[in-house]
């Protein structure tokens, strides 16, 4: 027999890791977990679904297309792109109180803000107020980088250039007279966009910063004169501009235009007749687009969206049905006891 002490310098370490003995939880898809699990998830989903559905039902939405495709529409007259400064009217009546706060949106369809080159066509530095980029905007803005005279365009790029420029005025017809419904245009953009992402150059007056630049060709007013009524709502931090610049993910989208929160309308739009005066500037018919206005209130789950509630209900019910099927299969087949 070999009696000498065995050298064991090469003996591997005896740890749980090296010996693959790490303690572990080994769950299994057993009937005791899966079937009750499905039932519970199903019931929970049905519950959430009902909640969502009811919430969504309670949200009021009023949508009006004003593209002017139909000849009966008042806006038909404005649908000719050569017609500048056209205004048209959209009249509607509410039979019940439209509960407030009411949000007023404009919506566009078949409009590809999600196009890659469209979305990329802007200059982040310029928009954050970097004056160097006022002189030489990035090439991504091309062909809205420089105008025909090689002057830099500020704000440059397709995205800014194509800013929505229809304007709206809402009147309630009270006893035949038009009563202006006050719009609140403050704080309709994201806080981060307004405070961090977009900044005007720290030049006063703002106008001087734009010296040597030209406005986007599509714009009627330069950036520093977007809102003549409120000097602080100009340049790159103009709320409408900010809303527009947050480009939509899908070809059909709506964007917040104004809120109705003031005066007699703080609690909503009372029943009655309304007239919406539209300064029709934005051409969409050329590419088969549609324009609409939307009045909507919101709930904890945001705007009206039936899908989520219904989807929850359907999935919940399917879970319950599935659990039944599994129960039957389980009762019938059990687990083979052999082997």
């Amino acid at each position, binding site marked *: 027999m070999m009696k000498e002490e065995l050298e064991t310098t090469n003996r591997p370490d005896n740890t749980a890791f090296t010996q693959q003995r790490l303690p572990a939880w080994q769950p299994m898809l057993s009937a005791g977990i899966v079937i009750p699990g499905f039932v519970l998830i199903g019931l929970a989903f049905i519950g959430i679904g009902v909640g969502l559905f009811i919430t969504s039902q309670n949200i009021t939405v009023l949508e009006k297309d004003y593209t002017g495709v139909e000849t009966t529409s008042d806006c038909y007259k404005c649908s000719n792109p050569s017609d500048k400064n056209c205004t048209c009217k959209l009249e509607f009546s509410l039979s019940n109180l439209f509960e407030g706060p009411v949000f007023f949106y404009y919506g566009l369809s078949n409009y590809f803000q999600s196009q890659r080159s469209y979305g990329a066509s802007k200059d982040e530095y310029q928009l954050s107020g970097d004056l160097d980029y006022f002189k030489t905007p990035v090439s991504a803005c091309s062909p809205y980088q420089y105008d025909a005279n090689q002057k830099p365009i500020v704000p440059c790029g397709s995205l800014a250039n194509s800013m929505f420029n229809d304007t709206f005025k809402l009147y309630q017809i009270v006893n035949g007279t038009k009563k202006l419904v006050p719009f609140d245009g403050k704080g309709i953009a994201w806080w981060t966009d307004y405070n961090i992402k977009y900044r005007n150059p720290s030049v006063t007056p703002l106008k001087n910063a734009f010296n040597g630049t030209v406005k986007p060709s599509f714009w009627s007013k330069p950036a520093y004169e977007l809102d003549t009524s409120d000097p602080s709502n100009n340049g790159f931090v103009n709320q409408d501009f900010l809303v527009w610049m947050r480009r939509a993910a899908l070809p059909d989208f709506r964007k917040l235009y104004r809120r109705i929160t003031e005066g007699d309308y703080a609690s909503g739009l009372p029943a009655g007749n309304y007239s919406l005066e539209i300064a029709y500037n934005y051409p969409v018919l050329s590419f088969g687009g549609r324009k609409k206005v939307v009045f909507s209130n919101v709930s904890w789950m945001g705007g009206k969206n039936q899908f*989520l509630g219904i989807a929850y209900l359907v999935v919940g019910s399917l879970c319950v049905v599935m659990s039944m099927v599994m129960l039957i299969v389980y009762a019938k087949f059990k687990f083979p006891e052999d082997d």
Partner: protein
Amino acid sequence: YIIDVVFPPTEEERHLRANDREFNLSYEYADNAIKTSKYNIFTFLPLNLFEQFQRLANAYFLFLLCLQLIPEISSLSWFTTVVPLVLVLSMTMAKDGSDDINRHRCDRQVNNRKVEADLLLLSSSEPLNLVYIETAELDGETNLKVKQALTVTGELEDCIEKLANFNGEVRCEPPNNRLDKFTGTLTLKEEMYSLDNEKVLLRGCTLRNTQWCFGLVVFGGPDTKLMQNCGKTTLKRTSIDRLMNVLVLSIFGFLAVMCLILAVGNGIWEYQEGSKFAAFLPKQEGVNAPFSAFLTFWSYVIILNTVVPISLYVSVEIIRLGNSFYIDWDRKMYYPKSDTPAEARTTTLNEELGQIKYIFSDKTGTLTQNIMTFNKCSINGKSYGEVRGGKGCVDFSWNNLADPKFCFHDHSLVEVVREGNPEVQAFFRLLALCHTVMPEEKKEGELYYQAQSPDEGALVTAARNFGFVFRSRTPESITVVEMGELVTYELLAVLDFNNVRKRMSVIVRSPEGKLTLYCKGADTIIFERLNPSCSKLKEVTTEHLNEYAGDGLRTLALAYKDIDPKYMEEWKLRHHEASTAMDEREEKLDALYEEIEKGLLLLGSTAVEDKLQDGVPQTIEQLSKADIKIWVLTGDKQETAENIGYSCNMLREEMTEVFIVSANTAEEVRKELQTARRKMRPDGPEEPTVTKSRSGLFCLLKTETVADEPVDGEYAMVINGHSLAFALEKDMEMELLRTACMCQTVICCRVTPLQKAQVVELVKKYKQAITLAIGDGANDVSMIKAAHIGVGISGQEGMQAVLSSDFSFAQFRYLQRLLLVHGRWSYLRMCKFLRYFFYKNFTFTFVHFWYGFFCGFSAQTVYDEWFITLYNLVYTALPVLALSLFDQVIRSLMLYPKLYAPGQLNQYFSKRAFVYTVLHSGYSSLVLFFIPWAAMYDTVRDDGKDIVDYQSFALLAQTCLLIAVSIQLGLDTHYWTSVNQFFLWGSLCVYFAVIFTMYSNGMFLIFTSSFPFIGTARNSLNQPNVWLTMLLTSILCVLPVVAYRFLRILLWPTVNDKVRYKVRQDKVLPPAPRRVQARRASTRRSGYAFSHAQGYGDLVTSGRFLRWTPKSRPALFSQTDSPLAQTQHQFYRTINEGGEPPLSP
């Protein structure tokens, strides 16, 4: 050993001159140095990069990078490609670098060893210029062989001057792989001498009993016969590797199709919408719809590149490396006796260990320890050696010449022999006299025996310990110390062993003048020649022999006979006549031997154990339960191989039939094979069922697969090398394959190294099954290289097998753990990894595809670019790595060898599984895109502000995706260690931490253009409908999978499911497998198994063999290994010692 080192390439004849360097160099023969390393410091970077970019995936990414530099096409920032590419390249580079450092080290080690080359023997320390060698490394035979130098060169002796002036010129055959043949001529002083195999020492053989010898190097390095026999080294790739290549290629095709669809979509969109949308999005000059579609095609190639995962190859390598480390670390594969841990020498083949279908095993040193122990004996009708109780070894201290390493457990035998029982004494006297062992007594009382075979050594050692010490021999005498008394016997004749006689005898005259013939041999042979008076004893002994044979011991019967001196005189005369006869000498001698070996008196029988390595029968049983077929390929002779087959349970008595194929002509071999096949499957078709198919890249490989044919009953086949040579011919190989594959066990004996490889190749070619070869010696190298996986037994003398192996460990029984545990787990992990990896990447990519329909096919990404960069590298890298390093299904795998089957059948990852994965991804991506799409359609935040903007939608889509794939990972994980938990939850946390950081004000203010998503996380993740959408997508992705899996387990449970269920049910593990060592109740006994060839009785009697006057002079080159000590050691190991505990904890 070496005078000069000289070397060669393809050549018709080798021509070299001793001590003439310039002349020899002119031929540019191969150097003896072996170089395997690839790089040096300066070439590393360029060469390695060049090599890496030859890989399809890397080259593709380089191409992508170039595409991204074209602004019209670039749909992603450069960093999304550069970051992963640099990471992947540097990791591969690090691995290649460390591998090459290892190779450099290995080369240095190999090249610094004493030079090994094929030598022409010039002179030696032994008389007549003899050299004794062992060729176990070459052919697995452990008996001594003799080589003899030419007399003319032998005169050189060890005189350096003479050697230095030696100017012989050698012309010989070019390098080849024939171990048994050498032809050439030596021209010395204008005289020509012919050279043959007798005069050549081959690389790999070991000198025994010889102090020094000088030689002339004929072949060096790669030209040596050993290396020529090693087969060519090919880069081994696993079947999953090959499948992966095919898949990657088809993914390219798939990618092209997707991009084409999107490009066509873009063309149509541009034509219908884009051209009109130009008011807001002006066209670039010269870009019309078709051209835009063309550009879009490339843009989408960039975006959808994630289907061709660059990190796949790297991850696969990491996983294999990790699983290789587990092998290195496994204490259950560590052999304390030689302090040898298991080693995964190739780190790229792990998962194939889980798919082995055929094992080809060497015998000597692999299944057996190559140690013979004298275990039992039957003397005069009484059996000794049965171990009763746990008593230790018998104390032999009364005998000061005893071998301390010898161990015997039965005390009664010692008592009997010391009491002076005449039969017992005669028994041991016979063992001490009747053999051809050479003794060596370096110091007084320190005896070493140099035996032709370990069997003989064991028997003589046994006699030595029981008081009959064989001390020395001369051609005419044998000196024995009998119970302390020195007795010299006169040796009159040695009737040598050969394969036909299966016995050997000696005729000696004792000091008292009594003439005795002692004979030992195969029992059947001896029994035929017994005196009728011993019929009773014969019966009892037969019983004992059956018992021993049943235990798998190698038995010999011993008998003696007193001879009348007159008869002897006369016989001797006739013997002299016969041995000098010119013709029919053999026959005449045989007849003489036959005549005198008659009327023998039976003494008893011995039982020698050819010690199997521990746990071999159990391992083989487990492996065959796992449906792995084991073929033994050995250079050993048929009887030995058969015997081992029985003792390790590969051949069993209850088998329906064991076919023996040993024919001498091709036709006979064919007939024998056909007969065997028809017997096994009488109604089977004559022609094999061959499935022809194409596989590999572009289906260029034609494969032929021979279907497995079911047979009733258990059969085995033993085929010898001679027949195998015929059977491996082109026209018969199919016959051989069919017959062999119907058998449970196949044993091929007396095969050459090259035949071993041919057998492996044959199975590889027609079975398309994964093969493993295991061996320990240089003769196994070719099959180790030929098989998909080569395993070397390490910790022994030779390293050749280990050096060319992929895995190595010290004991055969570790194979069980290597395959059933490591192999299975590696396979399972790799398959899970691949399935999951493809799933997560396809899902990721398909979402982009769907978004294409909503962004005018403009190659707009649906996720943030940073998410695209980090998705594979950070967010999902570690959890999937944890899955593929820690997952295990059933710990106590050893108990359920059946669980190995799915790997053999390729069930876990195949083209089919891949298609399922793609479909699953398709479903998931539909859910992951359209649920957020519908849920967000026309909705707003709870304060009326925007939420369906691009950035919020991107965030929602990517978060849904990440949560869904994380849950899917959770579903795939069966074994949740804390690391898995940590990585999974950690990755999700890191994701949220990263998005909040990247979308923070600070990051935007510092890197304005890189992080445009500022505020998105804050604005969107506080919305309940965003979270509800995530919940819905996750549930919709996961629940169908759960339901499907649950129902599948109920309706179509796999072996795996059943075992998991069972383990869970019992919690208590089932009883350990029976440790059966079925006793063979048979009459089948081993023959006279201890000699491989004709013995060297001739040498013994001629005196050539003996060292009368050893030329004693200090050796020029110190030879450190004591050749004699090696073969004699007798270890006795209990079966439990170092055994595997039956249960994994």
